[in-house]
């Protein structure tokens, strides 16, 4: 089974190139590429000069199974992912109940792979019930398919518990993903402290809380030599600590969310709860610093931090409203804002969207090299449109980009060489 993509603009994050060419897919893997005359035979897809890139590997997708299927199921999340060019969803364990034992994980993985048209790799909780008291069965969970361990936005405040979990995880070769945040300072906060929060009278957290959380975690990684990924770095003040930790050779990577890259605290305006995310949106200075860190490679990974919330949990006073935003489908058009503003090139963007997350999880995806899985996204970075949240495939429609002008649309998505989105 051969498919030939002709007349494409190949975006290769590994080589850092963005050039015209053709790409051959054979039996679900990439069979070759070139920029000369394409070979004969097989099914042909004329890309019309649009961009063909390795599909997005999105670490930190919340699918609300088990517990809250009315917010998002594996089916709806999978369709949204396919429509957004996300070929691998790395799902979060912060469900109700938490995914913290091999039985739940196996159940979820089975459901996921039957229902979703894209790859689903589950993460498991680091501590039982995400309560920060006892570590989960990390070894069994890895055998059952857990690709990383995280308590999501709950910070393990007991350093003894966390250090033991990190040491044990290191022994298993497991990756631990944490949310760097000081729990005391950030308690009850709905915004980032500063002029905006003061003007609107919202309880706020100093951006310093992120740096304090990261500093603590870095000390623990130094102590335990664990494999660590910070889920979201969103402030300028955390960056020097991250830079130092990397320079000192610790096994640390960092991510950030599409929302912190493209929005700032003032977007909340008159208490618009769809802009309430965790950590809260930051100042414009912080946003620019994070974009620069992404360009320099200090921040490795962009995630959607897809968090479905129903209308009820958002139609509340800002302080009481639930945090989080859906983003699987809007991830690519939103980060393309950074391409259009000339902050990042397409290969740089896909390094953070596809290549780096795949590498961090030890996957072969995220590349256009021969032998890599044919997980691909075809998109036109220029097509303008106005986002209508009711058109989203997610069951929940809580996007901050509703009504906003976007530029860039996914034309087709392939997983293992099979088309999962876009007309043939």
């Amino acid at each position: 089974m051969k498919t030939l993509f002709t007349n494409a603009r190949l975006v290769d994050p590994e080589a850092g190139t963005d050039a015209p060419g053709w790409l051959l897919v054979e039996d679900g893997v990439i069979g070759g590429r070139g920029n000369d005359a394409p070979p004969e035979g097989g099914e042909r897809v004329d890309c019309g000069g649009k961009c063909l890139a390795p599909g997005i590997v999105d670490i930190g997708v919340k699918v609300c199974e088990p517990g809250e299927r009315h917010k998002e199921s594996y089916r709806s999340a999978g369709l949204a992912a396919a429509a957004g060019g996300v070929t691998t969803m790395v799902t979060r364990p912060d469900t109700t109940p938490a995914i913290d034992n091999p039985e739940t994980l196996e159940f979820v993985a089975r459901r996921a792979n039957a229902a979703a048209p894209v790859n689903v790799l589950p993460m498991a909780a680091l501590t039982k019930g995400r309560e920060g008291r006892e570590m989960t069965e990390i070894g069994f969970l890895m055998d059952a398919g857990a690709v990383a361990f995280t308590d999501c936005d709950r910070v393990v405040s007991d350093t003894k518990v966390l250090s033991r979990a990190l040491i044990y995880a290191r022994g298993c070769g497991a990756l631990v993903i944490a949310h760097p945040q000081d729990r005391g300072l950030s308690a009850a906060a709905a915004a980032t402290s500063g002029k905006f929060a003061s003007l609107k009278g919202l309880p706020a957290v100093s951006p310093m809380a992120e740096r304090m959380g990261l500093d603590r975690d870095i000390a623990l990684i130094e102590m335990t030599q664990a494999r660590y990924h910070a889920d979201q770095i969103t402030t300028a003040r955390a960056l020097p600590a991250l830079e130092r930790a990397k320079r000192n050779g610790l096994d640390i990577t960092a991510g950030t969310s599409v929302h912190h890259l493209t929005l700032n605290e003032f977007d909340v305006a008159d208490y618009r709860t769809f802009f309430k995310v965790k950590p809260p949106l930051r100042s414009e200075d912080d946003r620019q610093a994070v974009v620069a860190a992404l360009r320099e490679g200090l921040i490795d990974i962009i995630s959607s931090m897809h968090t479905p919330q129903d209308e009820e949990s958002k139609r509340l006073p800002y302080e009481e409203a639930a945090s989080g935003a859906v983003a699987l489908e809007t991830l690519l058009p939103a980060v393309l804002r950074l391409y259009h503003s000339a902050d990042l090139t397409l290969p740089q963007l896909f390094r953070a969207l596809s290549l780096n997350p795949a590498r961090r999880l030890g996957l072969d995806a995220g590349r256009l090299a021969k032998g890599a899985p044919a997980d691909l996204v075809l998109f036109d970075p220029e097509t303008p449109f106005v986002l209508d949240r009711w058109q989203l495939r997610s069951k929940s429609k809580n996007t901050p980009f509703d009504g906003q002008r976007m530029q860039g649309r996914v034309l087709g998505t392939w997983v293992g060489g099979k088309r999962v989105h876009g007309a043939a």
Partner: protein
Amino acid sequence: MQFSQTHLLGIEPLSPVEITEVLDLAEQYVDLNQSERKHADALTGLTQINMFFENSTRTQASFELAGKRLGADVMNMAMQVSSLKKGETLIDTALTLNAMHPDLLVVRHPHSGAVDLLAQKVNCSVLNAGDGRHEHPTQALLDALTIRRAKGRLYRLSIAICGDIAHSRVARSNILLLQKMENRVRLIGPPTLMPAGIADFGVEVFDDMAEGLRDVDVVMMLRLQRERMDGGFIPSEREYYFRYGLDAEKLSFAKPDAIVMHPGPMNRGVEIDGEIADDINRSVIQDQVEMGVAVRMAVMDLLARGLRARRREAGKGVMA
């Protein structure tokens, strides 16, 4: 008429002209309230519902009296003991009330922005009677009227707001209003009770009373909530009184004719010395209460005029 607001959610959207219009109309109601027959008909036939999700005696009484003097049918709902306990959301409560066709909805809520949210869901005029730490616009307007009557003007005055700025909606609304009217605003209080980024508001910030009160025309004290007194934000009540409580000595740094204000209810011996609060030459605290009724009458009158005009335009003819 310059006043073009559908709701009064805060001072932020008001123009200086609109503020002046409210104050000018309120002056007329001050006279009415001092006369024997305290009745006008600006709100005749209209329904006013007071929804207080947070305890209040003074503000609620003031709104109630203002509505009744203008001829409205006034209903009080003590929300903290009713539907919210049954798990009803704010929006559902709003929709339920909306179905009763109120014309004016006066709302107080413990969360910032909750009144804005409610205003989006109903088709009457909403008055913010205090939302979280955000705004308390009628308090700022009554303070402005009090200052204007005492000082003869509401511009180029130096005004100190003292105490718990961080948790105070009164402070926020006052800062916005006084700056719109071109006054100099100083904030005085312990750094733990100052909001972050306050210097960006274009105010002068002091943590020393003597320095901050120097040559000011108006001293505005804020109430210190009891729950903030013990160890959390300040070490103790007595240390706070010693450093930030307004007494004769600290007041002596202000101009000799400086007036003293307090939004009430006062904690005598915590933020203000009892004698100063009662000094009729300096304290205008009783005037503030009086102005409160007049200002609320003026605001509701102006909102009702707008409401009637919009309904006429919409051809509903409800008020015809």
